């Protein structure tokens, strides 16, 4: 487990995991509002399986006149479902019960490794104590609030945590094709090179501006846009919002104004401009010549 010293205390629910490939990537820990629906879905499914199994057993054993044994197996089925449902699913479905799969969360060990059968069974047996008092899960909730990975007692004892396992399709790079932005982008001097921190700021702004009303955008953008406008020799009444977008466009999308000037329609850099080393097809990164450094 990582140390929880005040020095590396976090403000949000992101945790970092270092893989054997020597790369650190980030996970989001799943909070109670994702885990509760998953739990309820699982309870519903357990009940469904129990009743369906009961019907099946009644038919099978009732037909041969052993209704009593059928009932007995029904109770055993309930025992297995109530104690080992989660453990078995999490072992065989890579840390996910059907409910967790639907809510896109997954159980992993707290060092980022996959969980093993022992951990999966243990964390689900200890639901009995987490659910106290009276299946209201107050104890589990309390324990989850006390640590930075939302671990209930069962998670703490088995060394596991629940993380968000969101899928996301790559939507490509954000492109801004407002004509005013494109016009401004052409006016930015060709020598303009954004430093890393400026580039980060521009990207963060471009990604979020659509969620803001125009006056607010101007208010935020002015602090950076005004000095930039002076540097580029643009008129003082240039829209700060558009100017930052233009700088973003120049930094991230294309540095050669001619490419979208001539075509008129913006912004699909032609594949011919991209060198295609054979190594890339084999899956090697084209821009790594030395082993990747730890992130």
């Amino acid at each position, binding site marked *: *487990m990582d140390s929880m010293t005040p020095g590396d205390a976090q403000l949000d629910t992101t945790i970092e*995991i270092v893989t054997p*490939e020597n*790369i650190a*990537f980030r*996970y989001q820990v799943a909070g109670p509002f994702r885990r509760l629906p998953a739990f309820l879905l699982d309870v519903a499914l357990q009940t469904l399986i129990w009743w369906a199994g009961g019907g099946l057993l009644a038919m099978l*054993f009732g037909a041969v006149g052993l209704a*009593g*044994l059928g*009932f*007995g*197996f029904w*109770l*055993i089925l*309930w*025992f297995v479902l*109530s*104690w080992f449902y989660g453990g078995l699913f999490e*072992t*065989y479905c*890579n*840390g996910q019960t059907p409910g967790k799969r639907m809510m896109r969360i*997954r159980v*992993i060990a707290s060092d980022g*490794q996959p*969980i*093993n*059968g*022992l951990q999966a069974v243990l964390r689900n*047996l*200890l639901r*009995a*104590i987490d659910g106290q008092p009276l299946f209201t899960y107050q104890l589990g909730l309390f324990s989850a609030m006390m640590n930075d990975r939302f671990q209930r*007692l069962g998670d*703490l*004892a*088995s060394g596991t945590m629940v*993380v968000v*396992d969101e*899928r*996301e399709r*790559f939507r490509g*790079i*954000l492109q801004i094709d407002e004509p005013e932005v494109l016009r401004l982008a052409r006016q930015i001097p060709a020598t303009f090179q954004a430093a890393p921190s400026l580039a*980060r700021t521009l*990207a963060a702004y471009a*990604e979020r501006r659509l969620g803001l009303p125009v006056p607010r955008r101007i208010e935020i953008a002015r602090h950076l846009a005004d000095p930039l406008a002076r540097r580029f020799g643009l008129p003082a009444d240039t829209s700060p919002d558009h100017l930052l977008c233009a700088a973003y466009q120049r*930094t*991230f*999308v294309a*540095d050669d104004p001619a490419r979208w000037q001539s075509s008129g329609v913006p912004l699909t*850099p032609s594949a011919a401009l*991209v060198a295609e080393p054979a190594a890339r097809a084999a*899956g*090697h990164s*084209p*821009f*790594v010549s030395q082993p*990747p450094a730890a*992130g």
Partner: protein
Amino acid sequence: MRVSDLLQSRQKNWGELESLCVRLETWKGLRRDPAGATRFAALYRSLCADLALAEAYQLPPETVRYLHRLVGRAHNQLYRSRQFTISAWTRSLLVDVPRRLFGDNCLRLAFCIFWGAFLVAALLAARQPGFTEQLLGKEMIQQMEEMYATPIRALDPAGRGLMLGFYVFNNAGIGLRCFAFGLVFGVGGVLVTVYNATQLGAVFGHMSTVGQWGNFSEFVTAHGPFELTAIVLSAAAGMRMGFALVDTGGLRRIAALERAAGEAMPVACAAVLLFVLAALIEAFISPSPLPYGVKAGVAVLSAALLMLYFVGLGMPRGD
């Protein structure tokens, strides 16, 4: 090279990795497609390199977030949960658990608490009029007395299958709850153990004073050894977790708990197995019209098996 060009060149690989992930996330995975699996590994490594260099290449935050998600997703498919292997569990149950239990102070403590409370409650119930009534309530006593009023030979065999299920569900459930409650600094486990022991003791003590003793003792003989041992075992497993929180052995509390829980879980599983064995005997042998000698023989045999397990397999050896 501008970021958009870079992305353009990488996007194909990322998309391919995404679709391989989708296939891996299904039940069948890539079991029939070794070429796909190899390709997946190569793409994953290259994705890791991309993420490592994301900073250097000034990728926009949204793309970096996407890369983190995709690496996490692929990581989960590449390193999958390890499943149960029968050999590992057999070894754990037949070698590790008995050896660990042989010198386990928690087991000794659970044993003393259980049998101490049991004997005290039994003595009080037998000698002190009114004790049982206070502890169990009038209704339950009446129920018990009615239940054992019919001689065992006259029991209806049709109910046995149902009782098998009930015994597994109820008794193993009690055992597992006892295990889980042990987590509360061991106190929870002690409380549950004392509660179970006094209830059982009071029932035994009370029944010995009434006319149904014959039926009762004939019924409980055969499955007694397995069932009572299983209760003590699950209590001991719970206490092992709980006491690790108190006496951490120099580790952080959470780490001590993690280690103790990993050791205690197989013990709880052994207890469940014992509960199931006990339920089988309780459902099919105890209520059967077999002569008492056979039932006593089953009890002696199961006690001998338990001795073999705890002492024979548990005795510390040179290796």
